[in-house]
């Protein structure tokens, strides 16, 4: 039993399939110290650490297999192409897409949403049409739509949330109109932890024939995602939050939609035949992958997915839920702590403010105890405005965090309260 909290509340943790000591041993960085203290890394919503297998896969690839893809007939080019395309298949299986053609490699969630805004939005949204998002979106799922709406003269509609940080589903439904061309909504909020009722959302939108993009940046590291079961039309996520490298992410799109969409960028690889008069575009998914992609990090993402498959996303979800219960209960015992984001359905994110202490000061003091948290607006300024706070402190958890680390966090917070109180 490795993950007992100080009061034994976590009994049964490792019976559920996840051996956290074993997982931790796979992440080299977790054994380093920060300011003389063991690192307690609780900034996983910003980015997750990498297991050794991912780090090794990248260096192994550069040392043995690296070349450009889809170009040469030589051995290394063929080898690189095979390894790169294998990852597409791994992603397809990981999210249960129908076909590999539906998996487009991009830099990350931000680029994926921008692609849909520019390509799908550009082709399907006209003046006076509407795009519907929610009040808990990351700037990445606000700004591309604002840019589109400004360019076209369309209208951005925002579905409201309640003070627990939950989407108001009735209000959302009421905002779906004959003019709504797309719903783009986060699967899980990075600032609040709220998990949205995405199946209902998609059902409501589909009743009106409106496609739905899910921003999966936060959800995908914490739960099993099945795009066919969800029936979402687009799903965007980043490798770096999923224990993979930065600089690689994925857009899933239903092939009917992707087929009909114009290309996003022009260049090599996305074409079939070019003359100066006209260009014939390549088939899916290459139509959307212009230029030499991030080959090595794609291979790294493949290693991250392999790693997660050995653990199982259901075990990850189950373990993290217990961790969230534990930290929530402990946090509520602290005087002067207010949780920001108390949705009934939540992922392992604890956003909070302390009376009289600014989140930035919390962050600096905790850093001295080796604890990494995020302090700020979490790229969700409208969420901060809604809760009338300039910023929050956010501890966000991953499958390698433990109850002992929660205890260290609580000790650190007690110190903060004592010093500033």
């Amino acid at each position, binding site marked *: 039993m490795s993950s007992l909290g100080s009061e034994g509340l976590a009994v049964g943790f490792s019976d559920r399939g996840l051996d956290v000591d074993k997982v931790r041993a796979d992440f080299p960085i977790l054994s380093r110290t920060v300011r003389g203290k063991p690192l307690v890394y609780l900034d996983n919503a910003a980015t997750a650490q990498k297991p050794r297998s991912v780090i090794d896969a990248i260096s192994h690839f550069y040392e043995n297999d690296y070349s450009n893809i889809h170009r040469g007939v030589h051995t290394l080019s063929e080898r690189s192409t095979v390894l790169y395309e294998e990852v597409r298949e791994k992603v397809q299986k990981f999210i249960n897409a129908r076909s590999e053609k539906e998996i487009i490699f991009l830099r990350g969630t931000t680029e994926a949403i921008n692609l849909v805004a520019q390509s799908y939005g550009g082709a399907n949204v006209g003046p006076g049409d509407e795009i519907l998002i929610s009040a808990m979106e990351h700037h990445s799922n606000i700004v591309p739509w604002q840019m589109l709406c400004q360019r076209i003269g369309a209208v951005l509609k925002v579905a409201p949330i309640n003070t627990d940080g939950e989407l108001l589903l009735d209000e959302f439904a009421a905002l779906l109109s004959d003019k709504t061309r797309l719903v783009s909504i986060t699967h899980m909020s990075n600032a609040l932890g709220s998990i949205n009722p995405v199946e209902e959302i998609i059902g409501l939108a589909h009743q009106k024939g409106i496609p739905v993009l899910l921003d999966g940046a936060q959800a995908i590291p914490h739960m099993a995602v099945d795009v066919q079961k969800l029936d979402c039309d687009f799903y965007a996520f980043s490798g770096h939050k999923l224990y993979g490298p930065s600089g690689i992410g994925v857009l899933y799109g239903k092939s009917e939609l992707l087929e009909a969409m114009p290309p996003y960028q022009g260049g090599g690889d996305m074409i079939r035949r070019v003359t100066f008069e006209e260009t014939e575009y390549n088939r899916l998914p290459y139509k959307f992958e212009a230029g030499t992609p991030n080959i090595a990090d794609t291979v790294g993402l493949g290693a991250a997915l392999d790693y997660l498959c050995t653990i199982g996303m259901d075990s990850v979800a189950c373990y993290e839920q217990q961790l969230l219960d534990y930290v929530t209960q402990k946090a509520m015992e602290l005087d002067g702590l207010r949780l920001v984001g108390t949705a009934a359905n939540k992922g392992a994110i604890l956003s909070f403010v302390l009376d009289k202490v600014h989140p*930035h000061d919390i962050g600096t003091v905790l850093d001295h105890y080796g604890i990494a948290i995020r302090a*700020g607006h979490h790229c969700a300024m409208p969420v901060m405005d809604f809760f009338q706070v300039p910023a929050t402190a956010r501890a966000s958890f991953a499958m390698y965090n433990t109850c002992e680390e929660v205890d260290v966090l609580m000790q650190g917070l007690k110190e903060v309260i004592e010093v500033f109180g």
Partner: protein
Amino acid sequence: MMDDLRELYQEVIFDHNRNPRNFHVMENANRTVEGFNPLCGDRLTLYLNVQADIIEDASFQGSGCAISTASVSLMTEMVKGMTEQEAQNMFKIFQKITTGKDDDVKLEELGKLQVLAGVKDYPARVKCATLAWHTLDAAIKNEEKSVSTE
């Protein structure tokens, strides 16, 4: 609290954070500028009363972290009675010291602001300390708009 944290959070900083000086709206201000640090959401409004080129009065409103609150509180105390030129010189010295580019200035030149020198070891916090001064700089240049540290 640990010693290296004390370097950053000196007693004076706690004092000014708990009881900020000149913390009020100024009715007869002739310069009002808003400062904003998008990184941490800190916002402050700085009020000045400038006669000829003398800063007769300075006050502020807003919310921020301990470093930024102490910095603006200390600044309003310090610049009262200074000429605009003197205040801008002080800004330059303060910037040099807090960013560690301090070859040609001495810590003592900062006077009471020395307590903020510890931020030079915290690159992420330097902007908290300098927001007040960027805002003052804009007010002196009579830029009646908001400034941002980004």
